[in-house]
């Protein structure tokens, strides 16, 4: 019946067709409206961003389509709020209780919110997938968000206990769960990335960050006379600090060294962050599979650094603009509050101007980041992809139903939402 119009090639790349200017405009307009609607506009901005990125991503000559709407997101959010309010109210009342209930309610609350966050992340992914259409078929996701949430929380605990060493295995395991339950039509997805590969890639970075901290701790143990310190602390006196100093003349030096090492570690983390992003993206993309279709990413670390440098440059420029812009703002505030007896209205006006300035600055930096790093990472990721065995794409059958946006709403209300 069907006519094979195109002879699908054995391998094909992914193209990104986006015009940077259009994306900038979308983000800047979005940021301004976010400020004036105190965030309500976010549903429309999120939808705009997705529509832009999806439509401009072309796989084998055919672009993706995002068919979710902002109103769906808004309704999902309101539904999530309706669910969360009684929960929050319950915890509030439980916290008032003086007995054990009150004491454990805080811990239970944190654990429950953590679980709910992971649950929401999985459901939100389902929403995004079922709103992604390619060649007339939608993606979908099966699996249980609850099971995923429990796994994710356990993994996070393990990662925390192992000071991050378990993280690669966590990502691999969770990604396997996600992809095993991901489908394009009836074409099943899976994840072939191995945790230990990521572990080996990431280990040098991890060692570089941990080494200064380990040095600091080691120095502390070597230089501090613990017996003398314990004696100094056991004596009850107002001048504990002087006593400590007397017992341990090298303690100040050890403290200084520790602070220096922590700063070194933070500086290294900032410097290495783009490399980490590149490693993660390359590994993740190269592990994605749909039926017989394999993805390989040749993302260049150098180009990821380029994106971050671009952000730094523009952020610097923006800072200069802000510095000049703050002069008239401060002048207005001075005029409003300078008088002898300032009225409440004038004070409110001044506060509003200051707050507006602050929000403009913060939203500005965030918009710059999204327009440079966010945009570049999407573009570079897509352009780095090679897909093999695309013939499978011609014989996929429709499957799956659209899901509600409740997961997105929950993720939004719990502040764990992504793209």
């Amino acid at each position, binding site marked *: 019946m069907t*006519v094979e119009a195109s002879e699908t090639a054995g391998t094909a790349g992914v193209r990104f067709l986006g015009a940077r200017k259009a994306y900038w405009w979308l983000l800047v307009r979005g940021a301004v409206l976010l400020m004036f609607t105190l965030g309500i506009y976010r549903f429309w901005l999120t939808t705009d961003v997705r529509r832009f990125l999806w439509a401009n991503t072309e796989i084998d000559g055919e672009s993706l389509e995002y068919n979710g709407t902002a109103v769906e997101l808004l309704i999902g959010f309101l539904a999530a709020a309706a669910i969360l309010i009684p929960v929050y109210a319950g915890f509030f009342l439980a916290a008032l209780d003086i007995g054990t209930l009150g004491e454990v309610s805080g811990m239970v609350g944190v654990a429950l919110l953590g679980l709910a966050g992971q649950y929401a992340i999985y459901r939100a992914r389902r929403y995004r997938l079922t709103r992604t259409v390619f060649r007339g078929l939608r993606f979908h996701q099966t699996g249980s968000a609850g099971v995923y949430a429990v796994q994710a929380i356990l993994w996070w605990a393990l990662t925390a206990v192992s000071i991050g060493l378990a993280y690669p295995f966590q990502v691999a395991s969770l990604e396997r769960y996600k992809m095993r339950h991901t489908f394009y039509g009836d074409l099943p997805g899976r994840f072939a990335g191995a945790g230990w590969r990521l572990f080996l890639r990431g280990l040098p970075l991890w060692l570089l960050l941990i080494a200064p901290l380990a040095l600091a701790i080691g120095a502390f143990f070597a230089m501090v006379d613990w017996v003398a310190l314990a004696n100094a602390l056991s004596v009850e006196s107002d001048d504990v600090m002087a006593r400590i100093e007397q017992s341990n003349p090298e303690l100040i030096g050890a403290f200084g060294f520790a602070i220096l090492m922590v700063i070194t570690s933070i500086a290294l983390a900032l410097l290495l962050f783009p490399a980490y992003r590149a490693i993660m993206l390359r590994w993740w993309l190269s592990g994605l599979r749909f039926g017989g279709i394999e993805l390989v990413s040749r993302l260049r670390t150098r180009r990821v650094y380029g994106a971050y440098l671009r952000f730094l440059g523009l952020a610097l420029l923006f800072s200069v603009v802000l510095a000049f812009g703050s002069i008239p703002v401060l002048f207005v505030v001075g005029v409003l509050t300078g008088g002898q007896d300032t009225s409440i209205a004038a004070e409110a006006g001044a506060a509003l101007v200051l707050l507006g300035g*602050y929000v403009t600055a913060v939203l500005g930096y965030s918009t710059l980041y999204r327009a440079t790093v966010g945009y570049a990472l999407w573009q570079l990721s897509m352009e780095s992809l090679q897909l093999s065995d695309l013939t499978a794409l011609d014989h996929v*059958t429709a499957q799956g139903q659209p899901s509600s946006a409740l997961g997105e709403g929950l993720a939004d209300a719990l502040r764990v939402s992504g793209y």
Partner: protein
Amino acid sequence: MTTTDLSTPTSGPAVFFDGRTSARQDVRVTLGPSGLQMTDDAGRILADWHYDEIDELNAPANVLRLGRRHDPVLARLEVFDAPFAHAIDLRAESVDRTGAIHRRQRLHVVGWTILATLALVAVSYWGIPTIADRLAPAIPLTVERRMGEAVNMQVRSQLDTRNAGAGFDCGVNEQPGRAALEKMIKRLEGAAGLGLPLRASVVRRPEANAIALPGGQIYVFQGLIEKADNPDEVAGVIAHEIGHVAHRDNTKGMLQGAGLSFLFGMLLGDFVGGGAVVYAAKTVLQSSYSREAETAADRYGAELMRKVHGDPRALATMLDKIGGATEPGMKILLDHPETKARVVAINRIAPDGPTIPFLDAPEWAALKRICAG
């Protein structure tokens, strides 16, 4: 249907996906009077779509992607040829390659979201205190007393910086001082007609202040007793605190806080930099609610003093003494109104005939000594 420009093509090439399989099919689209028809190379009709059921879908700029509205089958038609896309645009109402429809919709969205924001901000200013006023009396006193117990533990541990524990309360060994305080409280409480018993005690804090907790617990600070020149000044401040108890201001404050957290924090403020907006809005609004509650408690306190034949103006004298200098900082952040304004408002309430002293001289001396033990 729009008028048809004859110079535009009435048929053209397109790519069709039937929504059942991912197979890509090159088709010929013919624009009829009421809809478009897709035929394959062999001339077979693949689909017939009415113009008024067509939706323009998310696609890159150079592609016109069409689908059928509300159709669970996601059949897609993609037109790459610009003149032909224009020809479809002319015929189908919802297709608009100029983006004018999209811009109009966007304008509506912007208008409505800004209106919604203004409405929510208005609710936070007028609505929340009103709702809290209505809701607070509906909360049973047992719940309030329970809250009071929890708050009491927190407040005590915060105020008791020297960790004196039971020694934080004055009057443990000063029976006459405690009796004097009791006498004062009884007289005020009798006239106030509260639904719950008051518990008042003097605590070792240097500030000239007093606080009321939910559930009727009142703490008078040692500093206040020391600064007072006569029993009416102490009684005036206690009457003000009884005002907070009577108005259930603690419960109202908690309800207001919950309402504000819902509006700012859940509905509003979820954007980068929004944290500062939420914090500022909550602080300013809560201060404003609190100023109103203080004014009302002043009025209540002065009226109560008049009712028991005390001096209603003693509260003003005490306030003048405590907050003599003008407070520094911004007015919108103050949780009390300016002392000057409070004093003026209280002094408008004149005593009801000759006043009866709260305590005689020995009792007053005992109260002054309550923290000596």
